[in-house]
Protein backbone atom coordinates (compact mmCIF):
# COMPACT_ATOMS: atom_id res chain seq x y z
CA UNK A 1 0.00 0.00 0.00
CA UNK A 2 1.40 3.38 -0.97
CA UNK A 3 1.22 6.43 1.24
CA UNK A 4 -1.36 7.97 -1.03
CA UNK A 5 -3.60 4.91 -0.71
CA UNK A 6 -3.33 4.94 3.04
CA UNK A 7 -4.20 8.57 3.10
CA UNK A 8 -7.20 8.02 0.90
CA UNK A 9 -8.43 5.20 3.09
CA UNK A 10 -8.10 7.20 6.29
CA UNK A 11 -9.94 10.08 4.74
CA UNK A 12 -12.71 7.80 3.57
CA UNK A 13 -13.29 6.13 6.91
CA UNK A 14 -13.32 9.50 8.60
CA UNK A 15 -15.99 10.63 6.19
CA UNK A 16 -18.00 7.48 6.82
CA UNK A 17 -17.80 7.98 10.55
CA UNK A 18 -19.29 11.42 10.16
CA UNK A 19 -21.99 10.02 7.90
CA UNK A 20 -23.01 7.36 10.40
CA UNK A 21 -23.57 9.97 13.08
CA UNK A 22 -25.79 12.09 10.84
CA UNK A 23 -27.54 8.97 9.68
CA UNK A 24 -28.31 7.86 13.22
CA UNK A 25 -29.79 11.24 14.02
CA UNK A 26 -31.95 11.06 10.88
CA UNK A 27 -33.09 7.52 11.76
CA UNK A 28 -33.93 8.64 15.27
CA UNK A 29 -35.94 11.56 13.96
CA UNK A 30 -37.92 9.36 11.56
CA UNK A 31 -38.72 6.84 14.29
CA UNK A 32 -39.77 9.66 16.60
CA UNK A 33 -42.10 11.16 13.97
CA UNK A 34 -43.76 7.80 13.30
CA UNK A 35 -44.14 6.88 16.94
CA UNK A 36 -45.48 10.27 18.03
CA UNK A 37 -47.81 10.42 15.01
CA UNK A 38 -49.23 6.93 15.50
CA UNK A 39 -49.53 7.19 19.27
CA UNK A 40 -51.30 10.57 19.20
CA UNK A 41 -53.62 9.36 16.43
CA UNK A 42 -54.66 6.33 18.49
CA UNK A 43 -54.82 8.29 21.76
CA UNK A 44 -57.07 10.94 20.23
CA UNK A 45 -59.41 8.31 18.83
CA UNK A 46 -62.21 8.36 21.37
CA UNK A 47 -65.35 10.40 21.96
CA UNK A 48 -64.68 13.73 23.61
CA UNK A 49 -67.25 13.57 26.39
CA UNK A 50 -66.44 17.15 27.36
CA UNK A 51 -67.42 18.59 23.95
CA UNK A 52 -70.57 20.71 24.12
CA UNK A 53 -73.39 19.03 22.24
CA UNK A 54 -76.82 20.26 21.13
CA UNK A 55 -79.67 19.58 23.55
CA UNK A 56 -81.29 16.96 21.28
CA UNK A 57 -78.24 14.73 21.53
CA UNK A 58 -77.97 11.47 23.45
CA UNK A 59 -74.47 10.15 24.08
CA UNK A 60 -75.66 6.54 24.07
CA UNK A 61 -77.06 6.96 20.56
CA UNK A 62 -73.71 8.03 19.19
CA UNK A 63 -74.20 11.73 19.95
CA UNK A 64 -76.72 11.94 17.09
CA UNK A 65 -79.57 14.48 16.98
CA UNK A 66 -82.67 12.65 18.15
CA UNK A 67 -86.39 12.97 17.55
CA UNK A 68 -89.26 11.02 19.17
CA UNK A 69 -87.19 8.91 21.49
CA UNK A 70 -90.14 6.68 22.42
CA UNK A 71 -91.30 5.84 18.89
CA UNK A 72 -91.03 2.09 18.19
CA UNK A 73 -89.12 2.19 14.90
CA UNK A 74 -85.60 3.54 15.13
CA UNK A 75 -84.01 5.11 12.08
CA UNK A 76 -80.34 6.12 12.11
CA UNK A 77 -79.39 8.46 9.29
CA UNK A 78 -75.67 8.86 8.55
CA UNK A 79 -75.00 11.63 6.08
CA UNK A 80 -72.62 14.37 5.08
CA UNK A 81 -74.04 17.74 4.07
CA UNK A 82 -71.45 18.02 1.32
CA UNK A 83 -72.15 14.60 -0.18
CA UNK A 84 -73.87 14.75 -3.59
CA UNK A 85 -75.40 11.28 -3.15
CA UNK A 86 -76.97 12.48 0.09
CA UNK A 87 -78.42 15.45 -1.78
CA UNK A 88 -79.98 13.13 -4.38
CA UNK A 89 -81.28 10.89 -1.63
CA UNK A 90 -82.74 13.87 0.23
CA UNK A 91 -84.39 15.28 -2.89
CA UNK A 92 -86.24 11.99 -3.30
CA UNK A 93 -87.04 10.98 0.28
CA UNK A 94 -86.85 14.12 2.41
CA UNK A 95 -90.59 14.77 2.47
CA UNK A 96 -91.47 11.22 3.47
CA UNK A 97 -88.89 11.10 6.27
CA UNK A 98 -89.74 14.57 7.58
CA UNK A 99 -93.46 13.70 7.73
CA UNK A 100 -92.65 10.56 9.73
CA UNK A 101 -90.47 12.61 12.10
CA UNK A 102 -92.94 15.45 12.62
CA UNK A 103 -95.86 13.04 13.10
CA UNK A 104 -93.82 11.16 15.69
CA UNK A 105 -93.88 7.81 13.87
CA UNK A 106 -90.17 7.16 13.89
CA UNK A 107 -87.40 7.52 16.43
CA UNK A 108 -85.00 9.36 14.14
CA UNK A 109 -81.32 9.85 14.94
CA UNK A 110 -79.40 12.10 12.57
CA UNK A 111 -75.62 11.64 12.40
CA UNK A 112 -74.19 14.52 10.35
CA UNK A 113 -70.73 13.24 9.44
CA UNK A 114 -67.80 15.33 8.33
CA UNK A 115 -65.39 13.07 6.47
CA UNK A 116 -65.58 15.16 3.28
CA UNK A 117 -63.72 17.99 4.91
CA UNK A 118 -63.70 21.32 6.74
CA UNK A 119 -66.98 22.57 5.29
CA UNK A 120 -68.69 19.35 6.37
CA UNK A 121 -67.62 20.15 9.91
CA UNK A 122 -68.98 23.71 9.60
CA UNK A 123 -72.31 22.59 8.15
CA UNK A 124 -72.78 19.79 10.72
CA UNK A 125 -72.02 22.19 13.58
CA UNK A 126 -74.40 24.80 12.15
CA UNK A 127 -77.16 22.18 11.82
CA UNK A 128 -76.58 21.35 15.50
CA UNK A 129 -76.97 25.06 16.33
CA UNK A 130 -80.24 25.03 14.37
CA UNK A 131 -81.34 22.01 16.37
CA UNK A 132 -81.09 24.08 19.55
CA UNK A 133 -83.50 26.53 17.91
CA UNK A 134 -85.94 23.72 17.06
CA UNK A 135 -85.17 24.12 13.36
CA UNK A 136 -82.96 21.13 12.58
CA UNK A 137 -85.19 19.64 9.89
CA UNK A 138 -85.55 23.00 8.15
CA UNK A 139 -81.80 23.68 8.24
CA UNK A 140 -81.13 20.10 7.12
CA UNK A 141 -83.36 20.53 4.06
CA UNK A 142 -81.91 23.96 3.21
CA UNK A 143 -78.32 22.67 3.44
CA UNK A 144 -79.05 20.09 0.75
CA UNK A 145 -81.10 22.44 -1.41
CA UNK A 146 -78.26 24.97 -1.37
CA UNK A 147 -75.43 22.42 -1.58
CA UNK A 148 -72.52 24.00 -3.49
CA UNK A 149 -71.50 22.26 -6.72
CA UNK A 150 -68.00 21.47 -5.43
CA UNK A 151 -66.89 20.32 -2.01
CA UNK A 152 -64.90 22.58 0.31
CA UNK A 153 -65.05 25.39 -2.24
CA UNK A 154 -65.28 28.11 0.36
CA UNK A 155 -69.03 28.52 -0.15
CA UNK A 156 -69.88 27.48 3.42
CA UNK A 157 -68.61 29.92 5.99
CA UNK A 158 -70.03 30.99 9.33
CA UNK A 159 -71.54 34.02 7.60
CA UNK A 160 -73.21 32.06 4.79
CA UNK A 161 -74.51 29.46 7.25
CA UNK A 162 -76.01 32.16 9.48
CA UNK A 163 -77.68 33.59 6.39
CA UNK A 164 -78.99 30.13 5.49
CA UNK A 165 -80.39 29.85 9.01
CA UNK A 166 -82.15 33.18 8.60
CA UNK A 167 -83.68 31.94 5.35
CA UNK A 168 -85.41 29.14 7.27
CA UNK A 169 -86.58 31.50 9.99
CA UNK A 170 -83.81 31.33 12.59
CA UNK A 171 -83.24 34.88 13.74
CA UNK A 172 -82.16 34.38 17.35
CA UNK A 173 -78.84 35.94 18.25
CA UNK A 174 -78.01 32.76 20.18
CA UNK A 175 -77.88 30.92 16.81
CA UNK A 176 -75.50 33.49 15.36
CA UNK A 177 -73.35 33.22 18.44
CA UNK A 178 -73.45 29.41 18.37
CA UNK A 179 -72.21 29.34 14.77
CA UNK A 180 -69.63 32.09 15.15
CA UNK A 181 -68.14 30.67 18.32
CA UNK A 182 -67.84 27.21 16.77
CA UNK A 183 -69.68 25.81 19.77
CA UNK A 184 -70.31 22.38 18.28
CA UNK A 185 -67.20 21.89 16.16
CA UNK A 186 -65.75 19.37 18.61
CA UNK A 187 -69.04 17.51 18.79
CA UNK A 188 -68.74 16.61 15.08
CA UNK A 189 -65.70 14.47 16.00
CA UNK A 190 -67.89 12.38 18.28
CA UNK A 191 -70.27 11.74 15.41
CA UNK A 192 -67.38 10.59 13.21
CA UNK A 193 -66.00 8.39 15.95
CA UNK A 194 -69.31 6.61 16.53
CA UNK A 195 -69.97 6.18 12.81
CA UNK A 196 -66.60 4.44 12.58
CA UNK A 197 -67.51 2.09 15.40
CA UNK A 198 -70.78 1.29 13.61
CA UNK A 199 -68.84 0.40 10.44
CA UNK A 200 -70.45 3.18 8.41
CA UNK A 201 -68.25 3.51 5.33
CA UNK A 202 -70.33 5.60 2.98
CA UNK A 203 -73.06 8.18 3.03
CA UNK A 204 -75.97 8.13 3.02
CA UNK A 205 -76.29 5.09 5.28
CA UNK A 206 -79.62 4.36 6.91
CA UNK A 207 -80.16 1.83 9.64
CA UNK A 208 -83.74 0.68 10.22
CA UNK A 209 -83.90 -0.75 13.72
CA UNK A 210 -80.15 -1.20 13.48
CA UNK A 211 -80.17 -2.96 10.11
CA UNK A 212 -78.61 -1.32 7.06
CA UNK A 213 -80.97 -0.42 4.26
CA UNK A 214 -80.06 -2.33 1.04
CA UNK A 215 -78.15 -0.18 -1.48
CA UNK A 216 -80.89 -0.42 -4.10
CA UNK A 217 -83.53 1.16 -1.83
CA UNK A 218 -81.93 4.58 -1.40
CA UNK A 219 -82.93 6.24 -4.63
CA UNK A 220 -86.13 4.28 -5.30
CA UNK A 221 -88.95 5.93 -3.29
CA UNK A 222 -91.33 2.95 -3.60
CA UNK A 223 -88.70 0.49 -2.33
CA UNK A 224 -87.62 2.99 0.31
CA UNK A 225 -91.12 3.36 1.75
CA UNK A 226 -91.71 -0.39 1.52
CA UNK A 227 -88.58 -0.94 3.63
CA UNK A 228 -89.90 1.48 6.26
CA UNK A 229 -93.25 -0.27 6.32
CA UNK A 230 -91.56 -3.65 6.63
CA UNK A 231 -89.65 -2.25 9.62
CA UNK A 232 -92.97 -1.43 11.29
CA UNK A 233 -93.78 2.13 10.23
CA UNK A 234 -97.53 2.49 9.86
Amino acid at each position, binding site marked *: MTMADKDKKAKKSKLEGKDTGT*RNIVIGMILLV*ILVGAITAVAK*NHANTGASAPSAVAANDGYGIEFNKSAPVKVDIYE*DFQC*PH*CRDFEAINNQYVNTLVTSGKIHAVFHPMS*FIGPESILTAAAAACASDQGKFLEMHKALYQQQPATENSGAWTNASLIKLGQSVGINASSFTQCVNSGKYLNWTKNIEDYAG*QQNVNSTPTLLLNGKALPQ*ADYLDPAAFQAAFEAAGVK
Partner: protein
Amino acid sequence: MKKFFTVNLQEWLTLLFRLILGGVLLAAGWIKAMAPSEAQASVRVYQVLPVKVANTFGLVLPWLEIGIALLLILGIWVKWSGLSGGALMLLFIIAIGQAWARKLPINCGCFGNGGVTADGKVHPWVYATEIMRDCGLVLCAGFIARFPRGKFSLDDKTTI
Protein backbone atom coordinates in the same frame (compact mmCIF):
# COMPACT_ATOMS: atom_id res chain seq x y z
CA MET B 1 -15.78 1.47 -19.04
CA LYS B 2 -18.96 -0.23 -20.13
CA LYS B 3 -19.38 -1.96 -16.77
CA PHE B 4 -18.89 1.29 -14.92
CA PHE B 5 -21.69 2.80 -16.95
CA THR B 6 -24.16 0.02 -16.16
CA VAL B 7 -23.41 0.15 -12.44
CA ASN B 8 -23.88 3.86 -12.56
CA LEU B 9 -27.18 3.49 -14.41
CA GLN B 10 -28.38 0.93 -11.88
CA GLU B 11 -27.62 3.33 -9.03
CA TRP B 12 -29.64 6.06 -10.70
CA LEU B 13 -32.50 3.60 -11.34
CA THR B 14 -32.47 2.55 -7.69
CA LEU B 15 -32.72 6.22 -6.74
CA LEU B 16 -35.57 6.74 -9.23
CA PHE B 17 -37.55 3.76 -7.92
CA ARG B 18 -36.87 4.79 -4.32
CA LEU B 19 -38.32 8.20 -5.09
CA ILE B 20 -41.35 6.75 -6.91
CA LEU B 21 -42.24 4.22 -4.21
CA GLY B 22 -41.33 6.62 -1.40
CA GLY B 23 -43.21 9.48 -3.02
CA VAL B 24 -46.40 7.46 -3.43
CA LEU B 25 -46.20 6.17 0.14
CA LEU B 26 -45.47 9.62 1.52
CA ALA B 27 -48.39 11.24 -0.31
CA ALA B 28 -50.81 8.44 0.57
CA GLY B 29 -49.67 8.37 4.18
CA TRP B 30 -49.78 12.13 4.63
CA ILE B 31 -53.29 12.50 3.16
CA LYS B 32 -54.57 9.74 5.43
CA ALA B 33 -52.74 10.98 8.52
CA MET B 34 -54.43 14.34 8.07
CA ALA B 35 -57.89 12.73 7.70
CA PRO B 36 -57.94 9.99 10.34
CA SER B 37 -61.63 9.08 10.17
CA GLU B 38 -61.38 8.63 6.42
CA ALA B 39 -58.23 6.57 6.90
CA GLN B 40 -60.15 4.30 9.27
CA ALA B 41 -62.99 3.92 6.76
CA SER B 42 -60.49 3.09 4.02
CA VAL B 43 -59.40 0.04 6.03
CA ARG B 44 -62.94 -0.96 7.08
CA VAL B 45 -64.26 -1.06 3.50
CA TYR B 46 -62.23 -4.19 2.75
CA GLN B 47 -64.15 -6.02 5.49
CA VAL B 48 -61.21 -8.22 6.40
CA LEU B 49 -60.40 -7.09 9.93
CA PRO B 50 -62.90 -6.78 12.80
CA VAL B 51 -64.18 -3.18 13.01
CA LYS B 52 -62.20 -2.31 16.14
CA VAL B 53 -58.93 -3.69 14.78
CA ALA B 54 -59.54 -2.02 11.41
CA ASN B 55 -60.10 1.34 13.12
CA THR B 56 -56.82 1.11 15.03
CA PHE B 57 -54.91 -0.16 12.02
CA GLY B 58 -56.37 2.71 9.96
CA LEU B 59 -54.77 5.17 12.37
CA VAL B 60 -51.36 3.48 12.51
CA LEU B 61 -51.01 2.57 8.81
CA PRO B 62 -50.54 6.16 7.52
CA TRP B 63 -47.61 6.69 9.91
CA LEU B 64 -46.10 3.37 8.90
CA GLU B 65 -46.33 4.50 5.27
CA ILE B 66 -44.75 7.85 6.09
CA GLY B 67 -41.92 6.11 7.95
CA ILE B 68 -41.12 3.68 5.13
CA ALA B 69 -41.38 6.56 2.64
CA LEU B 70 -38.86 8.69 4.51
CA LEU B 71 -36.43 5.77 4.81
CA LEU B 72 -36.73 5.11 1.07
CA ILE B 73 -36.37 8.73 0.01
CA LEU B 74 -33.35 9.37 2.24
CA GLY B 75 -31.89 5.96 1.47
CA ILE B 76 -31.72 4.34 4.89
CA TRP B 77 -31.77 0.53 5.29
CA VAL B 78 -32.68 0.64 1.60
CA LYS B 79 -32.96 -3.12 1.14
CA TRP B 80 -35.33 -3.53 4.07
CA SER B 81 -37.36 -0.39 3.53
CA GLY B 82 -37.78 -1.45 -0.10
CA LEU B 83 -38.96 -4.88 1.01
CA SER B 84 -41.36 -3.34 3.54
CA GLY B 85 -42.79 -1.00 0.91
CA GLY B 86 -43.23 -3.95 -1.43
CA ALA B 87 -44.87 -6.00 1.31
CA LEU B 88 -47.37 -3.18 1.95
CA MET B 89 -48.19 -3.05 -1.76
CA LEU B 90 -48.70 -6.84 -1.83
CA LEU B 91 -51.04 -6.45 1.14
CA PHE B 92 -53.03 -3.82 -0.77
CA ILE B 93 -53.20 -6.04 -3.84
CA ILE B 94 -54.58 -8.92 -1.76
CA ALA B 95 -57.09 -6.58 -0.06
CA ILE B 96 -58.30 -5.15 -3.37
CA GLY B 97 -58.41 -8.59 -4.99
CA GLN B 98 -60.59 -10.08 -2.27
CA ALA B 99 -62.88 -7.01 -2.35
CA TRP B 100 -63.23 -7.47 -6.09
CA ALA B 101 -64.09 -11.15 -5.63
CA ARG B 102 -66.66 -10.30 -2.95
CA LYS B 103 -68.04 -7.35 -4.95
CA LEU B 104 -67.32 -4.90 -2.14
CA PRO B 105 -67.14 -1.20 -3.05
CA ILE B 106 -63.65 0.01 -2.11
CA ASN B 107 -64.00 3.77 -2.16
CA CYS B 108 -65.16 5.03 1.14
CA GLY B 109 -67.44 8.00 1.31
CA CYS B 110 -69.53 9.63 -1.27
CA PHE B 111 -67.51 9.60 -4.40
CA GLY B 112 -69.75 7.22 -6.24
CA ASN B 113 -67.87 4.60 -8.14
CA GLY B 114 -65.84 2.50 -5.75
CA GLY B 115 -66.13 -0.51 -8.02
CA VAL B 116 -69.80 -1.08 -7.29
CA THR B 117 -72.35 1.57 -8.23
CA ALA B 118 -75.66 2.22 -6.50
CA ASP B 119 -77.46 -0.15 -8.89
CA GLY B 120 -75.25 -3.01 -7.71
CA LYS B 121 -73.16 -3.19 -10.91
CA VAL B 122 -69.53 -4.24 -10.51
CA HIS B 123 -66.98 -2.23 -12.47
CA PRO B 124 -63.83 -4.36 -12.87
CA TRP B 125 -61.67 -1.47 -14.13
CA VAL B 126 -61.82 0.27 -10.79
CA TYR B 127 -60.19 -2.74 -9.10
CA ALA B 128 -57.93 -3.61 -12.03
CA THR B 129 -56.35 -0.14 -12.30
CA GLU B 130 -55.61 -0.06 -8.59
CA ILE B 131 -54.08 -3.53 -8.71
CA MET B 132 -51.97 -2.62 -11.76
CA ARG B 133 -50.67 0.52 -10.06
CA ASP B 134 -49.73 -1.48 -6.97
CA CYS B 135 -48.08 -4.18 -9.11
CA GLY B 136 -45.94 -1.48 -10.71
CA LEU B 137 -44.89 -0.36 -7.24
CA VAL B 138 -44.10 -3.96 -6.23
CA LEU B 139 -41.73 -4.11 -9.22
CA CYS B 140 -40.07 -0.88 -8.02
CA ALA B 141 -39.71 -2.43 -4.58
CA GLY B 142 -38.26 -5.62 -6.03
CA PHE B 143 -35.61 -3.66 -7.93
CA ILE B 144 -34.71 -1.66 -4.83
CA ALA B 145 -34.36 -4.81 -2.71
CA ARG B 146 -32.27 -6.57 -5.37
CA PHE B 147 -30.06 -3.52 -6.04
CA PRO B 148 -30.16 -1.47 -2.85
CA ARG B 149 -26.99 0.44 -3.69
CA GLY B 150 -28.04 3.75 -5.19
CA LYS B 151 -27.33 7.44 -5.61
CA PHE B 152 -27.94 9.92 -2.80
CA SER B 153 -28.31 7.31 -0.10
CA LEU B 154 -27.39 7.57 3.55
CA ASP B 155 -26.58 3.87 3.61
CA ASP B 156 -22.94 2.89 3.95
CA LYS B 157 -22.04 1.89 0.40
CA THR B 158 -19.17 -0.37 1.47
CA THR B 159 -21.54 -2.82 3.16
CA ILE B 160 -24.00 -3.32 0.31
